[in-house]
Each structure stands twice: as structure tokens, then as C-alpha cells.
């Protein structure tokens, strides 16, 4: 019997480490002939259910336990591991969640031990690079990637095969390959899952890229906010070096390649390829005009290819199974699968990998089981700060590069934030804009000053100080910034604002003309009030940080108390709208209006 515990960042933060340690100590107490193999694994994609424990019996049948804690661990050890009786109440059937998914990028995440190179080798790991080195020319590798139809998963969606061909055709040497693991979109976590759950797949993808383009050195540019990813990548690199997959004369083929990790230093703009290269060179991460493209003049002035983590993780599959096999998935000009990071108000948030061309509704309402607390989907925001916000009425839109672009949204990083009726669209637009405004590198005027002006207007609207004409001004500024910025940060920054205006104009109007926030979210436009359900328990008074709630605590009968003292009252002037009282009230007796 085997036990594996999901220990990616999501699993650890939900308490997975405690569970793992408990299994370790319990299993060590078992007698010798009850051999149980315990291992860690990455993120299965069903992050809402963490910590996840899989018990695998000798026939290979998987029993999946979710939301496990220390106590449940002891139960599993006693009942399942010792007595051989699976605990039905704690098991979940994940088949409905995975039935419509196709796992290529995430093929090993949540199944293998990411800190073991042998575990990766057991699932055909490093077979693709062996195949390429033994039997394929560099040109054939590129041809295979072209045939797969794979397009860059980092945002722009440029053909990966073409990109590689351009770099390979540049005669200058040395050449470099960079893996973009900056994952800057706040709300996307697919790259993190791959880096933490299957780091060797990224290395193998980079090796194949390096072989096909003749690169001798590679860099993985990983954001510092992912310390576990950096740690596991380093383990993977060390193991690969030791086994001779990296270094000189790899597998006796004469091919030399090595790579190192470069930790980002916390700048969103460094996800942009030219800014990324600047920062590796030791400069401020400011984008420059393209052309020249990195394939022409990249890192240290040399031919360079930059690919996203997900793009690279696809490569070993494509080489091993053939480009044609990958091309079978997807539609039109968008082939293969894409991982979406679904979060926000959705019930089963996590990573979903589906063939391109599936509808948003299918992903959000079926695979992710709709919205928490049985509320309704109001909107979905795709592609983070560069992307757009689509209303419920467009949920039947299918995800492929071209179709989504027509709606004003993008596939982008695959970030998908689902909003319900309590999410204010104006506030969401303001949120994204304040992010891009802060992250603007300041090089070009339109992005630097234009986003600031737009943000001021949005702040005013959310504060109830909006003016008639503000919406038109936002549209005018937005269009100008889009058309005149040097890089895609500015070029896409207005998108969340422009799409929310396009689809939710009435919400902007309500803020401006009626000083009303329909989602009851903008602090300046709402008041808190205690209603009849109040029983005088006093818990709101205890948590209120600004002494804004007055009344006498009840002792004894509710009706008598009501008659004598009246229910608690919130003094609006003192209320800072911190939401603590609502969170503490067990009687739903506080209302926002």
C-alpha cells in the first residue's frame, strides 16, 4: 500500500505538512510486514479540497481523501491502513471533476513525487530528450513542435515552433533559452503548480528547446513569491546534473547544456520578455521597443528564446507522442490543452486543464460546480490585469485565442476570476488598474501618467464623487493608452476598465448618478445597520474596533431585553466598514444597504 500527501503550496497552507508528519510518525510505529510507502506529491488541481491524501492499494486503486487533518489522519491509519477498511465518509469521487479534463501539462502533478528524479523517470520522464538526441535532428524537433500547433501559453499566443525556428536560424552564438516563470498575473497559479509539482518536465522541455536551437545555457526566471517552486527546481536541477541530463556531452550525444535559476525581485513588468532580460543583465527591468526581437538580439545581445513554463511543460509530451497527437485536441487555430486557474467566488476553485474550445460555462458551472453559497455568476474576468471581464450572458463563449479576443477578453495567462453579485465591477476595474498603475515601469508617458489619471477617476467614482462624463473620459484615455504605450503592460492595462464599461455600464451609471453601489461593496456608498434579528449577544460590540456599536448586553429573556433596551445600534459616523461585526454575527442581524 502507498500513501501520498499533496504538498504543493496550496496543500501545505491548508495544513498538509501536519498531515504528512502525522502519517510519518504513525507509519513508523507499524510492524514490519505492514510496509507502507509514504511520499509527497504536487497539486492535483482541486485546491479547494486540500489537504488531499491518496491511499493506493496493491492493485493500484486510488482512494482519495480530502480536507484531512491530524485527527482524520489517525482514523485513516487505523481503519484503512491497519484494518484495510476505507472510510467512505471521508472519500470523494473526483471523477466528475476530471472526466472532461485532458491532462497534458499537469500530467504528473499530484501523482508523482516532485523531489524524486526516479519518480519522473518512471512516468516516461527524460524519454523525450533521449528520443530527440538518439533519433531526431534539430530541425525535426522544431518541425514536430510546429506540427503540434502549440502557441505560447505566456500571454501573446505566438507559435512556439516559429519562434524556435527564428532563433535557430540566427547564426550568432552563444544562444540562450529562458523559461519565464514570473507568473505575474495576480490570480493565476498554473505555473506554480507545474514548478512545484513536476519541475523535471520543465527542465526536459528546456533541454529539448535548447537542443533544437543550439543553446548552451538556460535560465529559469522564477518569481521570489514562490519560494517552494525555487526550492524544488533547484533540487531537480541538482538531480539532473548528477544523472547526466545536464552538463557536458549529455547522454553521450555531444550536446552540452546547463541551466540556472534567476530569482525575480518583485516587479510585474519583468514578466515582459525584454524587461526580464534587462533584469538578468543587472539593470532596471524596463521593456524596450521590439524589433529587434529576442530571437534576433536577446540576452547579452545574443539570440534568445523565451517561453512560458506551461509551453515548455507541453514539449516533452509533443516530442514523445508526436505533434499530430497534440494537434488532435483543440479547435481552429488554438490546439492542444490549456490550464486555467479558476478562483474567486467559485465553489470548486483550482486548476482545470481542458482542450481549447470548451465553453466558459462548461468550465465554471460544470467542472468547478458554480458559485459558492448558491449565488449566481455575474461575471468572469479572464487573463488578469491585461484581460477583460465578460458578463454571464457571454458564458457560452468558447475559449480559444481568436474567439476570446473578439469579446475584449484574452486567454492570457489562463487566470479566470469568477465574480458573483456581491462583486462590484467598478471596484474590480479599479483594482486591476491600480495594480498596473503601480507596476508601470514609468518609461513611457501614456502608461505612466495615463493610468494614473484613469485611476483617479475610478477612485472618485467608487467614492461617490463621480461626474457625468467620467465614463467617456475613461474610454478616451483608455483608447489612447492602448494605442500609444511601448509595451503590452500599458497596451493592455485599460482592458479591464474598457470591458467593464462595455458590459456593465449601468453599474458605472449607478455609482455616478445615484451614488449607489449595486453590489453593496464600495465602502463610501454603503451603510451598516443592525436589524430585528438581533438578540443582544454582544459579539459585534466585542469585535468592533472603533466602538461604533452601542446598546446594552442582554441578560435573560430576548423579548424583555428588547422592550427594555432596544436592539444594538451602529453609529454611522464612527463605523469604518471593516466588516468585523457581520463576520462575528451568528444571527444574520446586520445588514448592508
Amino acid at each position, binding site marked *: 500500500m502507498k500513501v501520498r500527501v499533496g504538498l504543493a503550496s496550496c496543500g501545505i497552507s491548508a495544513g498538509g505538512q501536519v498531515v504528512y508528519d502525522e502519517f510519518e510518525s504513525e507509519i513508523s510505529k507499524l510492524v514490519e510486514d505492514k510496509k507502507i510507502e509514504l511520499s509527497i506529491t504536487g497539486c492535483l488541481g482541486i485546491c479547494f479540497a486540500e489537504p488531499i491524501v491518496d491511499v493506493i492499494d496493491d492493485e493500484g486503486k486510488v482512494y482519495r481523501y480530502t480536507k484531512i487533518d491530524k485527527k482524520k489522519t489517525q482514523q485513516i491509519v487505523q481503519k484503512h491502513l491497519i484494518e484495510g477498511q476505507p472510510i467512505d465518509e471521508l472519500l470523494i469521487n473526483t471523477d466528475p471533476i476530471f472526466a472532461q479534463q485532458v491532462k497534458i501539462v499537469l500530467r504528473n502533478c499530484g501523482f508523482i513525487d516532485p523531489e524524486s528524479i526516479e519518480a519522473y523517470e518512471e512516468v516516461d520522464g527524460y524519454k523525450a530528450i533521449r528520443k530527440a538526441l538518439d533519433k531526431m535532428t534539430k530541425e525535426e524537433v522544431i518541425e514536430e513542435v510546429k506540427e503540434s500547433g502549440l502557441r505560447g501559453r505566456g500571454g501573446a499566443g505566438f507559435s512556439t515552433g516559429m519562434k524556435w525556428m527564428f532563433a535557430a536560424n540566427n547564426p550568432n552564438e552563444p544562444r540562450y533559452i529562458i523559461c519565464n516563470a514570473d507568473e505575474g498575473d495576480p490570480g*493565476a497559479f498554473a505555473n506554480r503548480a507545474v514548478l512545484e509539482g513536476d519541475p523535471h518536465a520543465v527542465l526536459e522541455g528546456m533541454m529539448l528547446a535548447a537542443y533544437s536551437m543550439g543553446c548552451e545555457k538556460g535560465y529559469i526566471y522564477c518569481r521570489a513569491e514562490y519560494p517552494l517552486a525555487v526550492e524544488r527546481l533547484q533540487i531537480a536541477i541538482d538531480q539532473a546534473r548528477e544523472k547526466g541530463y545536464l552538463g557536458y556531452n549529455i547522454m553521450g550525444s555531444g550536446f552540452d547544456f546547463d541551466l540556472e535559476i534567476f530569482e525575480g525581485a518583485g516587479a510585474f513588468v519583468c514578466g515582459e520578455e525584454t524587461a526580464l532580460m534587462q533584469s538578468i543583465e543587472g539593470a532596471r527591468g524596463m521593456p524596450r521597443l521590439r524589433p529587434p526581437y529576442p530571437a534576433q538580439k536577446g540576452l547579452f545581445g545574443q539570440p534568445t528564446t523565451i517561453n512560458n513554463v506551461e509551453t515548455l511543460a507541453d514539449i516533452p509530451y509533443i516530442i514523445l507522442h508526436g505533434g499530430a497527437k497534440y494537434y488532435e485536441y483543440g479547435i481552429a487555430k488554438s490546439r492542444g490543452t490549456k490550464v486555467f486557474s479558476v478562483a474567486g467566488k467559485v465553489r470548486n476553485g483550482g486548476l482545470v486543464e481542458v482542450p481549447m474550445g470548451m465553453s466558459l460555462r462548461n468550465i465554471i458551472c460544470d467542472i468547478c460546480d458554480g458559485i459558492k453559497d448558491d449565488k449566481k455568476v455575474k461575471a468572469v474576468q479572464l487573463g488578469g490585469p491585461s484581460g477583460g471581464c465578460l458578463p454571464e450572458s457571454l458564458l457560452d463563449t468558447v475559449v480559444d485565442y481568436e474567439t476570446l479576443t473578439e469579446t475584449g477578453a484574452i486567454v492570457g495567462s489562463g487566470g479566470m476570476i469568477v465574480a458573483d453579485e456581491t462583486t462590484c465591477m467598478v471596484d474590480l476595474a479599479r483594482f486591476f488598474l491600480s495594480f498596473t498603475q503601480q507596476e508601470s515601469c514609468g518609461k513611457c508617458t501614456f502608461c505612466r501618467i495615463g493610468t494614473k489619471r484613469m485611476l483617479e477617476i475610478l477612485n472618485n467614482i467608487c467614492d461617490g464623487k463621480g461626474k457625468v462624463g467620467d465614463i467617456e473620459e475613461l474610454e478616451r484615455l483608455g483608447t489612447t493608452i492602448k494605442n500609444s504605450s511601448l509595451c503590452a503592460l500599458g497596451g493592455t492595462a485599460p482592458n479591464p476598465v474598457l470591458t467593464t464599461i462595455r458590459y456593465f455600464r449601468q453599474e458605472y451609471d449607478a455609482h455616478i448618478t445615484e451614488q449607489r453601489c449595486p453590489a453593496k461593496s464600495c465602502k463610501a456608498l454603503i451603510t451598516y445597520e443592525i436589524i430585528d434579528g438581533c438578540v443582544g449577544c454582544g459579539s459585534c460590540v466585542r469585535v468592533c474596533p472603533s466602538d461604533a456599536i452601542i446598546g446594552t448586553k442582554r441578560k435573560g429573556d430576548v423579548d424583555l431585553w428588547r422592550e427594555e433596551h432596544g436592539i444594538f445600534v451602529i453609529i454611522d459616523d464612527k463605523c469604518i466598514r471593516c466588516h468585523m461585526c457581520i463576520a462575528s454575527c451568528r444571527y444574520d442581524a446586520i445588514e448592508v444597504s
Partner: protein
Amino acid sequence: MKFILSETLTTEEVLKDFNEEKSNLIPMLQILQTKIGYVTREGVYAIAAKLNVPPAEVYGVATFFAQFKFEPSGKYHILICMGTACHVNGAREVLGAVERELGINEGETTEDGLFTIEEVACLGCCSLAPVMMINKEIHAGLTPTKAIKVIKAIRKEEENES
């Protein structure tokens, strides 16, 4: 009282493994930040001398990136996620609660040098939003009350130690 990670480690020792290649600039700043706790003036001058560039250039790079601090920060570095998923799930309320509990604003350090609060864009645990990270350990599924509990527990532990 401020917590400086190492009283004894000198700038020279921290930077000894680097050569004069300019691509070492950010890694050198990072090692200062992790080993000393912040980017010291002395460190900036040492890097400049090693790479043969003006100190202003080193400052120019250091100030560009959010990771680098120019003052020592608290023993417990609280990163509160303000990413999209956390935002729509109430991160503002969590931040507000932590700020009030510690009596400081985002970006500041408590008098006793124990806590620094900082906003961060996303910690990659979006399905468990809202989240915060304290010295590399992630706390998920927060509410204002839960966040305050975490802080109180750390405080108590510190008090017991001293």
C-alpha cells in the same frame, strides 16, 4: 530594538562568492536582503565597487524592485495577499484587521521590531483565498478574526520565549 538577521556577518563575507559580472547585481542585492535583512548603504557601495559601476546605478536598480528594503524589517514579515482572488474574497478586511491589531499601516514595522506588514500581489494559493504569508509560511482561508488569531499566537510564543 530592531532585528538584524546577522550582527556578525560582514558585507564582504556575504558578497564574497560573486565576480565582477554585471549580471550579478540583482543576485547580490538579494543575498544582502536575505542575509543582512535589508539593503545597507555599505552593501550598495561594496556592490558598486565590485562591479565597477557608480553606486547610483546600484540604487537605481535596487529601488526599482519591490523586494528590496532599505531599512531592517520586523522579525515576522507578514505578506498579505492583495491579488485578484484574495481581493474579491475580502483581503481588504483582513489587511485592515491586521493593521489595527498591530497598530501600524502596510509598509511599516512595529515599535518592538517584531512585525512588518506588506502587501503582495499574489501568493499562488488563489483557491484558498484570502491568504497571507508569514516568513515563508502560508496561512489560507482567512477571515479578519482568523488572521488576528495567527498574530496573537506568534506574539504569545515570543512572550514565552523572552
